[in-house]
């Protein structure tokens, strides 16, 4: 397994204080991880941190998708880590890279597209608008969709989306 030094630098830059280097693989993150428990460690946060720290880019991105995307973002590992490593931040970096590789589960591309096009993850629907009225609620204040799409386009998000 080869170390990708550029990737390793990206990982270390997430933690300016270098705290990730103090990971001693105690496995507390995985012990507390609800997904590791139900997947028999197919999702294993400790292994992800080790691979990230060593810059083993290929090992991370050529594994089964669940090795990264099994994370349910509950932030439990962050709380139980005795070295105060913000694991979830590292995992976010891995997922962002997986999106660029075109390997993320479909759901994430779909949600990003929905937000890009509607400025909402759940677009307004006539039936719900009527229900809001029945419940005596004001209409949802409509967001400026054009402005949001422009913002995201300027940042190149549209290029990361997948086709129709």
């Amino acid at each position, binding site marked *: 397994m080869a170390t990708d030094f550029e990737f390793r630098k990206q990982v270390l830059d997430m933690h300016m204080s270098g705290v990730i280097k103090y990971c001693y693989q105690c496995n507390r993150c995985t012990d507390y991880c609800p997904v590791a428990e139900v997947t028999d460690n197919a999702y294993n946060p400790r292994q992800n941190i080790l691979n990230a720290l060593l810059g083993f880019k290929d090992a991370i991105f050529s594994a089964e998708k669940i090795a990264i995307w099994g994370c349910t*973002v509950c932030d439990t590992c962050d709380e139980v880590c005795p070295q105060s490593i913000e694991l979830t931040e590292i995992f976010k970096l891995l997922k962002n890279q997986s999106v660029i590789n075109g390997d993320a589960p479909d759901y994430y591309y779909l949600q990003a597209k929905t937000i890009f096009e509607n400025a909402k993850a759940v677009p307004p629907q006539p039936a719900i608008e009527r229900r809001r009225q029945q419940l005596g609620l004001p209409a949802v204040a409509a967001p400026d969709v054009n402005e949001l799409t422009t913002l995201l386009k300027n940042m190149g998000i549209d290029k990361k989306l997948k086709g129709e």
Partner: protein
Amino acid sequence: MAEFKMFEGCMIGNRIPFIEASCRKVFDKLGIATSQAPFSCCPDPTGFANFDNDGWLAVGARNLALAESEGKDIISLCNGCSNTLKLVNHTLKHDNLKKDKINQELLKIGKEYKGTIDVKHFVSVLKGELEKIKSSTVKPLSGLKVACHPGCHYMRPSEVMETDDPMHPMDLKEIVIACGATVVDYGEEVLCCGSSVSNAYEDHGMAILKKKMDAVKKVGADCLVVNCPACFQQFDGKQRDLSKKFEEEFKIPILYISELIALGMGIPADELGTKFHRTRVSDILEKIG
């Protein structure tokens, strides 16, 4: 109390608005004033943040800038939204390089993030109004056994959320007690609902949900109280599928904490739209009377 900008979020605003109804009624009774703003998606800390971190920061910062332009703090009805908005606020306040980068993007659309407002989850606001909740409760819910699920992002990551103990949360329990109901512990209070992992891996989400619902059922809770729409959808919407998959009845009513408070305040269930729940709540309504 100063007026807040209401951040109801995509899921509550555009899918399960009855939750907003109970929140607004409770806020009115407690004198918590709110007004609207044309917020976009927060965006989703478990979805869009994992898609593109900088895009997520920029959209979050734009929402914060909208509230900043009126000089008002945000009150969020959702764990996800309060998690995103607090994380974005925290990140940009502590990382000037990032802040400059995001502001360069915002400048192009005529906005600027300054970092001048706070974001509150409505539960932490209610936690400061326990006496008022007690005195506005006309139907004490004594005898009602309530299991509590504050949800991961109400208190984690604790350094950013700054609300409650990350592994032994108390805020939601204290509100339930203020309503006169009885809190029952079930040992899995801080377990994730499984919603986020379900988006890509439905079976694993269901396995986590099963663990949670087994624990709630075992202690004989009358209902499970939540304060996050994603958790609500997972517990309320997927309970029937869970029963089918594991051939086991659960039938555990799920209430948003605002619904429980509203019922205690004597607000009729039909004004709250409880009929829109997927898992029936009629048993509790009868019990409350």
